[in-house]
């Protein structure tokens, strides 16, 4: 009699591991289900109803709000803008963030001070940032136009002209997010064992080779995270857009309007929460699809 001991042991090990995993996950999963997913489902469910303060008086309208979306030109504008923000902002934020993190990692003196300085914008409240930028970018009195005029460039309207407003907002958001991105990359760089570099250097690798074959691949998990989270953030852009053009939110001429801002306006200025919920479903589907594609394309197993 030969008991299949190793196999049995393997099964029980796997079961044990799964049991542990569910023990780890029990409380958090319950939290996500009841505090995040169920309310989200309730919010999205509203898209099938017209809104009323009294829950028992919300008429069922089926897919009417989804049909309404097809006719909504402001929604189309918001959708286009939101995608433009994301396409422009995410790569810029990743590239600049990585560049600065590498520079910061390369210096030894005043390193802490530099880090704190680059982190400062991320800490500063959006309202304060909006005010300062509106001064710096003022077409008439702003310091940026002063500097441009030294190079013979005429004053630019920046936030006050439809053709420039979106790009300007993007720059400001990237500027603010850099602190976040830099801290993240620095944490990722710290996570790479020093021995790898030392070993490679002994083998005579150049700086570029070190970056190409050690830093970049080992930074992949942080890259994936940054790309996904950055994209989710830009697709839900709201606070900075509101603050940077406070009296004509999403303007001028709808040129900075985002989906999240439009949802807010539909919900809380027009009190059409049913329609706002339908647009939220659209936004959710967009974010989910992009995230899944990103996770599939960008992730690769890291082998040590």
């Amino acid at each position, binding site marked *: 009699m030969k008991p299949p001991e190793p196999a049995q042991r393997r099964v029980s090990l796997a079961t044990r591991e799964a049991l542990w995993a569910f023990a780890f996950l029990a409380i*958090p999963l319950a939290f996500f289900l009841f505090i995040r997913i169920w309310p989200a489902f309730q919010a999205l469910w509203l898209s099938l109803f017209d809104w009323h303060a009294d829950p028992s008086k919300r008429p069922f309208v089926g897919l009417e709000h989804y049909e309404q979306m097809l006719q909504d030109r402001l929604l189309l504008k918001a959708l286009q803008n939101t995608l433009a923000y994301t396409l422009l902002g995410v790569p810029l934020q990743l590239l600049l963030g990585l560049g600065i993190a590498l520079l910061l990692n390369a210096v030894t003196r005043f390193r802490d001070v*530099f*880090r704190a300085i680059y982190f400062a914008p991320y800490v500063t409240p959006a309202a304060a940032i909006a005010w300062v930028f509106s001064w710096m970018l003022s077409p008439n009195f702003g310091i940026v136009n002063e500097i441009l005029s030294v190079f013979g460039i005429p004053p630019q309207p920046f936030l006050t002209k439809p053709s420039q407003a979106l790009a300007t907002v993007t720059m400001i958001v990237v500027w603010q997010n*850099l*602190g976040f991105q830099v801290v993240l990359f620095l944490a990722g760089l710290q*996570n790479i064992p020093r021995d790898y570099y030392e070993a490679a250097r002994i083998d005579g690798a150049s700086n570029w080779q070190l970056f190409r074959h050690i830093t970049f691949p080992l930074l992949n998990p942080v890259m994936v995270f940054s790309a996904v989270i950055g994209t989710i953030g830009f697709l839900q852009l709201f606070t900075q857009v509101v603050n940077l053009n406070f009296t004509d939110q999403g303007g001028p001429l709808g040129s900075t309007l985002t989906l999240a801002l439009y949802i807010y306006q539909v919900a809380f200025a027009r009190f059409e929460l049913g329609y706002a919920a339908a647009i939220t479903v659209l936004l959710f589907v967009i974010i989910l699809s992009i995230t899944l594609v990103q996770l599939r394309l960008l992730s690769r197993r890291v082998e040590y």
Partner: protein
Amino acid sequence: MKRLSTFLIYALLILGSLVMFFPFVWMFLTSLKPFAEIFELKVWPQAPTLDNYREVLFKTQFPRWFLNSLIVAGITTLSVLFFDSLVGYALAKLRFPGKGLIFVLILSTLMVPTEMLVIPWYVMSTEYGWSNTYWGLLFPGVISAFGVFLMRQFFETLPTDLLDAGRIDGLSEFGVFWRIAFPLVRPALAALGIFTFLGNWNAFLWPLIVVQTADMRTIPVGVALFSSEAGTAWNLIMAASSLAVLPVLLVFLFFQRQIIEGVVLTGVKG
């Protein structure tokens, strides 16, 4: 050659610092100006005053708002650090059925904007009597998908041999997580801690909805009171913002090395 590149790096960093730090300095300088001077187009205060700070500290409930924000952001951060790394570890290092689905499910909670969630949360809060309490303020954030994702990414880079060594030594799975894995990802924990704290420190929408009385307001809700139909008291906003931001930045400045770098030396790298 080496000298030159070092010089270039510093030159770049200093140039960048100017761009990054100037608005922050401006915020602080504006906080020293009297209201009538706000609209004069000068960066430097002509008649610097601490009146704005006096007004914010003594004529509003700012100290109380500060305390509230500290409590909410502090507790949330501790809770997130623990639970998120627990989940992140399970998702990165343990094998179990439904793992991919659970990960996407958790991640999907980041994809519905808060503005649409506040109504169901508020209904929940009134039902259970959480409205206008600290628990009401912090319950939606005590575990975050953001942190789960971040920790999963970092745990993934940990060599499995290291964990197996712990298992062979007879540690339970929780012991492996707590004694071996958790300390090794401290750079990531530091980053997550800072982000979570700041996210809650600056959060506006949910605190606005769940709080009714002046003594339960958090800093952002309080600061929003300085703006109204007839204009904005920028001098007060800047003073309150400086008071809110400076401590955070100083903590970051002085403790970043301890939390980010000091650990690398103690960690065992495979």
